[in-house]
């Protein structure tokens, strides 16, 4: 068990590789209750989210969720998150564990005169991710709604063995699957119900190796308060939102139009070894960036990573060197995602 944002969390239940493979081949259950959950209510919610988020709320509709970032004025990232529109006056938002307090404060500071009330439900509700190719098959008998009717990024409210649940077809593994939220009192029962389907419990280690293969950004690694979404390759999140002012818009639109000096790229090694976060990247002995995430890919059976490097070296096929402790290993820029089934 490790401490993660104040929660005691299992890195692995058994073996990271076995848990990873279980999610790629059947299904895995992740306890993601450490993540934050807010309820936003009021007539001003959509107008408010248009101001603090870089994605466009006009692309959203009731029963649908949207991935977005909220940014500072300089375009760097406060947090990346998903919000779900229950109705135009009521949104559920899931944020990163380490950013719960910061986000809650940031959001409240920017409500202004709008009619918006934010409730922090993080400690009274639990969250599980149920991910993998068999997640539909395993979950359907337990719930009172038709999972086929929930498209990707949509959600519904229903019951799992009589326990009221929020269920969204979203995830962080590169597999089809669901994310669930429910009152704490149902947590143990739902966990054991899901494990009994044949799904494997999966810990933080597999969560990280799966998301890295799927090339989903992780706050504190590919994005943080000194990296912008455009630098992180999330330029598609930056929406023009004509006539709407939003925090960070000026610099992000500028970056999206003209590019950035640094950019996140995919990396492989041409020699044996493992690259990890913060290892330095060189081109002909000149430092050009650093590894933001790295590790072993159980699916591809090789080392993969992401690095923030100078734009001149971003082309796929560019050879570079990555410093692994006392020596430089040969690496290469490769296309991403490394692996996704969705």
């Amino acid at each position, binding site marked *: 068990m490790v401490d993660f944002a104040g929660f005691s969390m299992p890195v*692995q239940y058994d*073996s990271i*590789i076995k848990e990873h493979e279980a999610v790629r081949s059947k299904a895995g259950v992740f306890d993601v209750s450490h993540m934050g959950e807010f309820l936003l209510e009021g007539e001003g919610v959509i107008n408010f989210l248009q101001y603090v988020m870089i994605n466009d709320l006009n692309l959203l509709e009731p029963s649908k969720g949207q991935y977005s970032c909220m940014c500072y004025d300089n375009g760097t990232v406060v947090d990346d998150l998903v919000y779900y529109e229950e109705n135009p006056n009521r949104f559920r938002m899931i944020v990163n564990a380490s950013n719960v307090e910061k986000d809650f404060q940031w959001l409240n500071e920017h409500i202004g005169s709008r009619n918006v009330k934010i409730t922090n439900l993080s400690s009274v509700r639990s969250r599980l991710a149920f991910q993998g190719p068999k997640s539909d098959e395993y979950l359907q008998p337990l719930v009172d709604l038709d999972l086929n009717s929930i498209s990707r990024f949509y959600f519904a409210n229903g019951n799992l063995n009589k326990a009221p649940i929020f269920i969204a077809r979203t995830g962080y593994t590169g597999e089809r699957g669901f994310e669930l939220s429910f009152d704490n009192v149902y947590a143990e029962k739902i966990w054991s119900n899901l494990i009994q389907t044949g799904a494997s419990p999966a810990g933080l*280690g597999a969560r990280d190796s799966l998301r890295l293969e799927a090339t989903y950004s992780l706050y504190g690694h590919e994005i943080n308060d000194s990296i912008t979404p455009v630098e992180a390759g999330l330029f598609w999140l930056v929406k023009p939102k004509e006539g709407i002012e939003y925090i960070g818009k000026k610099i992000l639109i500028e970056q999206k139009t003209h590019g950035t000096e640094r950019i996140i790229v995919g990396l492989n090694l041409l020699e*044996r070894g*493992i690259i*990890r976060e913060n290892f330095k990247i060189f081109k002909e002995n000149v430092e050009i960036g650093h590894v933001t995430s790295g590790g*072993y890919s159980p699916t591809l059976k090789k*080392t993969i990573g992401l690095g923030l490097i100078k734009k001149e070296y971003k082309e796929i096929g560019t050879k570079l060197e990555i410093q692994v402790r006392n020596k430089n290993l040969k690496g290469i820029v490769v296309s991403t995602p490394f692996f996704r089934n969705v």
Partner: protein
Amino acid sequence: MDYEFPDNLKYTKTHEWVRIEDKTATVGITDYAQHQLGDIVYIELPEKGANLERQKSAGEIESVKAVGELLIPLSGKIIEINSTLVDNPEVVNSSPYGSGWMLKLEYKNELEINDLLSVEDYKRIVEEEN
């Protein structure tokens, strides 16, 4: 958590095990060490013929979540490395004292053997770490 620590081996406080046979010593990492590292995915070992001093790094053991170092328990010359670990590093997880051995060396100073830990002393160290 129950770990296996064979009685007939010597140990180090850095979690290597040593099997002494005449003038050679076979070296690997303990069941506790492999468990702490988790799934091992890459192992780098020294060249055959290398002369290494006690406590010097003789290799790196990369797992999915961490990297560990193999420290030489006895000064001497490397006479054999377990080359099957290049392609099958996971053997160290499944058989740390058997097919997961890492290297054999010809030790040069018999007195150093006295500094190795007995199984009882090593078990105490593992208990303290937990």
